[in-house]
């Protein structure tokens, strides 16, 4: 070998290596960067495998996934007010409207117009607010009933989110018999996934029927949100979740994600279940943390049967991080890589995205497109999905 000839580029060299031509050379010729000493070795993180118990089955009843009925109006209102950073309580939507127009709303003005009616006369309160609000017919809401069966057969009922429009949610609650379950105090807790209008502002509807129901919110709630809980007539025990994992009953845990969300909201809590002999089930409101972070957090922290992701339900929002590769279909790809066996999606997932899940062969449980749900690709309003026996 001569020391002064050099005419092989690194790229050509490694291309040869890739085809095996110089494999022998690799072994003998000082592949410096292969030597482990060249780089400090980093500690490998262990999965935490937090054992939160096991349950037998989970059944979700979609009370409502239609958060609003006209997307152009919703986005138009946000943009008119100044965009994604505007405080949601100032948008001038019911029930925090004051009739002063875009971006001129305030929590105090709105609530003072209806406070004395909450929660006993939500019909009248909503009528008053409709006269003051932008696009008063647009609100719907997101809410679902979760029925968990313990290993010994004991049943537990929970609500995730309480929607937006008092009228729409009251009608939806009646359609699914939620009003009576609340009156009978059969529902053991209400979890609010995040502070957004369509998941949280319908709180007085739940309060009307049971104002002592245990309530869980993210510690990213702003002061207006906490005040609204009081002003809705809540008299029960409020839990402000402040740990990444809060166990609820065996096989059920509340997961907390600290993430900034549009229109001055912070943080989303989602639910995780460990179903015996099946695996992990995830239930989300909007999944603003992104499906990738949701699934990855569960993978890194929780112990679940068969080490298997079994099912998922709810709004599967696109990642809050816009992906750096415009070609990369992050929601479709990131959902696919976890191998769920039952997928029930709706709300902020997107109809075409749901269609793409189906085209990609994902096991999407289809719905019936009733009660103003727009597509059978969604697990729609009034539809149910069961995980486990």
């Amino acid at each position: 070998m001569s020391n002064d000839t050099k005419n092989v580029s690194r790229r050509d060299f490694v291309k040869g290596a890739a085809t095996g031509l110089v494999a022998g050379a690799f072994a003998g010729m000082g592949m410096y960067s292969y030597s482990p000493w060249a780089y400090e070795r980093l500690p490998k993180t262990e999965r935490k495998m937090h054992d939160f118990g096991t349950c037998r089955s989970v059944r979700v009843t979609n009370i409502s996934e239609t958060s609003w009925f006209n997307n152009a109006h919703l986005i138009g209102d946000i943009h008119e007010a100044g965009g994604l950073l505007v405080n949601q309580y100032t948008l001038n939507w019911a029930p925090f409207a004051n009739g002063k127009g875009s971006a001129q709303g305030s929590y105090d003005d709105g609530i003072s117009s209806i406070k004395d009616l909450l929660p006993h006369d939500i019909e009248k309160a909503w009528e008053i607010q409709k006269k003051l609000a932008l696009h008063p017919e647009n609100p719907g809401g997101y809410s679902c009933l979760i029925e968990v069966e313990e290993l010994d057969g004991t049943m537990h009922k929970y609500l995730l989110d309480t929607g937006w429009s008092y009228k729409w949610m009251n009608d939806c609650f009646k359609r699914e018999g939620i009003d009576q379950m609340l009156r009978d105090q059969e529902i053991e807790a209400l979890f609010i996934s995040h502070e957004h209008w369509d998941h949280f502002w319908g709180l007085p509807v739940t309060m009307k029927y049971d104002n002592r129901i245990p309530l869980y919110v993210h510690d990213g709630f702003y002061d207006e949100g906490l005040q609204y809980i009081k002003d809705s007539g809540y008299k029960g025990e409020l839990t402000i979740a402040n740990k990444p994992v809060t166990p609820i009953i065996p096989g059920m845990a509340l997961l907390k994600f600290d993430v900034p969300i549009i229109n001055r909201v912070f943080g989303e809590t989602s639910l995780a279940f460990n179903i015996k002999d099946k695996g992990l089930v995830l239930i989300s409101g909007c999944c603003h943390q992104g499906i990738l972070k949701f699934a990855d957090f569960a993978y890194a922290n929780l112990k679940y049967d068969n080490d298997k992701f079994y099912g998922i339900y709810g709004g599967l929002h696109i990642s809050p991080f816009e992906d750096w590769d415009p070609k990369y279909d992050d929601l479709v790809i990131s959902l696919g890589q976890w191998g769920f066996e039952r997928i029930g999606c709706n709300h902020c997932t997107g109809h075409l995205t749901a269609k793409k899940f189906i085209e990609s062969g994902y096991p999407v449980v289809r719905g019936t497109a009733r009660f103003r749900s727009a597509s059978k690709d969604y697990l729609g309003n009034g539809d149910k999905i069961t995980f486990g026996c």
Partner: protein
Amino acid sequence: MNLSAILPQQRRKDQPVNMPDLLMNCILAASQHETFKRLIGWKGMSVCAKGTQGWTAKIKKRPGVYGLCTENSLSDKTGHHADIGIYYFPAPEEKLLDTMSIVANLAAIQDEYMSNIRGFSGNTAWAAPFRMGSLKISLDFAEDALALSLAADKHKITIARDGVADLSGQWVISPGEAEEDFPAHAIALDIVLALGAAVTNSLELPTTWYGQWLSPGEASCYTAQGEPCFLDMEVTTITDTFAWGDRKAARELAFPRSFPAPDISCGPDRKDLMPESIAQAVLWKTHDLAAMGKEEEYAYAFDSRPKLIVLSGFLGSGKTTFLNQLLEYHASRDELVAIIQNEVGQTGVDGKLLEGDDSIVELDEGCVCCTLAGSISRGVEQLRARFNPKVIVLETTGLANPFNILQELDKLRPLVRLESITTLVDAPNALNLLSQSDIARDQVRAADTILLNKCDLTSKAELDEVTAKLRQLNKRAALIQTEYGNAKPGLLYDTDTLKQSIPGLLPSPPKAPHHDHTMEGYTSRRFAFTSPLSRENLIRTLKNLPPEVFRLKGIVGIAGTEEAEVVQYVAGRYELSRLGDSFEDEYFLVAIGKNMDLSALDNLQEVYA
């Protein structure tokens, strides 16, 4: 300091703070300002799955992908700290690789390179040759000071004492030459300055202090056996520290008292003392974006005009399908899209096929490109006033010639930012069509982006031929192959925010007069049906349509099924699909073509009228 944008408002102060999450929240919160993303050239990020806490990200300044990976994290009596490894994975063609290790080069030519990058934090041994430096982030317990410190070698150098040769004995690296010699500090600094700008923005506080330490580091040297050997060569390790909030507390956080005095230590008032790249960085200013908006230098980031996309493509090339993707893409980002659309034929078919009709404003009948050329700006003005959309799509009819509107588009400049002229091309029909139709050729010539659609319906050989033909007509357009109009709309947007030129105006229109559809003799006719059709009958009709019928589409009921079906027919190929929605109107089909013999459709209409 106000941390409410990046940490939970009601948090308990005695809980540990996940500092890498806090840093990423700064970027997430700041990115809610479109302006901020443009200022720092932010191109997006992604969470690493199934590994150590980590992210990948891209900025405009470099073609490769950055990696950030938590290496250590602790809360002690001074506050909360984390060390984050900074990685840079060059684009496979990037010249930088010539200065990086052989193993880095080997990694970069693998098909799995991009997917390995996405998950690099789960395989740090694989990623190690791409590590540029280490970022420390600290927040004091009182929450009145935050510091970012980047430590990286000015040049990362590794010498191959015995050289590396290939089998034939030719040197890849001569003995004693560097296997690695790259500017690690400069590379790492680019992403750290972007992160710093995000911190400034989300704290709404300017950076208060900058410090730099220079310290001797070491180059490495290895023998052929991989053993380290002595090398008398010094390299410089540079540590840059940026502080927010209380200067003293922040400095103390980043560097204990025992640390030697910094080589540079100054506030924002002494930019003359700072290295150029740091003095020029936007992190000194991003706490007040409104003020930046008044500076000429940053005008590019404060352009609030909606983006305009001109969507072109011959009859049946898949414009509506693609438009649906675009609508959902923006809806999921809470962005409003307005569509200016018109249709040859008496029924706005596409309006019925698009989801969420309310974002569609149909201009007058006819072709926006020819007869309505005068009213595009009025349409755009109205849309802006009524909806202030983020994106306006001007969907031209399949028979429109984009060159006819170039002049009009130029006049729209004060109202919109012309993003691209995008032309869909139906791959299986392309060769035939391009040889026959001047309009189809002009649609390709005018494009900035060509979406070659229905690639699943052509052979590889045919695809190559079509590609060559398209390239012959238009060398400069981005060419993307798609199936079912399934292109990520993100591809259409020039994220190169510094680009000032108007892309659609670049192609020089040919001298000859442009053809519009009246010149090519295309006509259209609508057929109406009151009762559901038999599937058999419909399919027989479709199969026997004469070649003069180029395009047929519509919505019909099918006997024995509940849902209405969408009929799509292009040049002899047809498709029926569920509408997926209830359909209350009269069933219809619209045929478009030249000198069409429509007796088969007449018969069908007679039977089911």
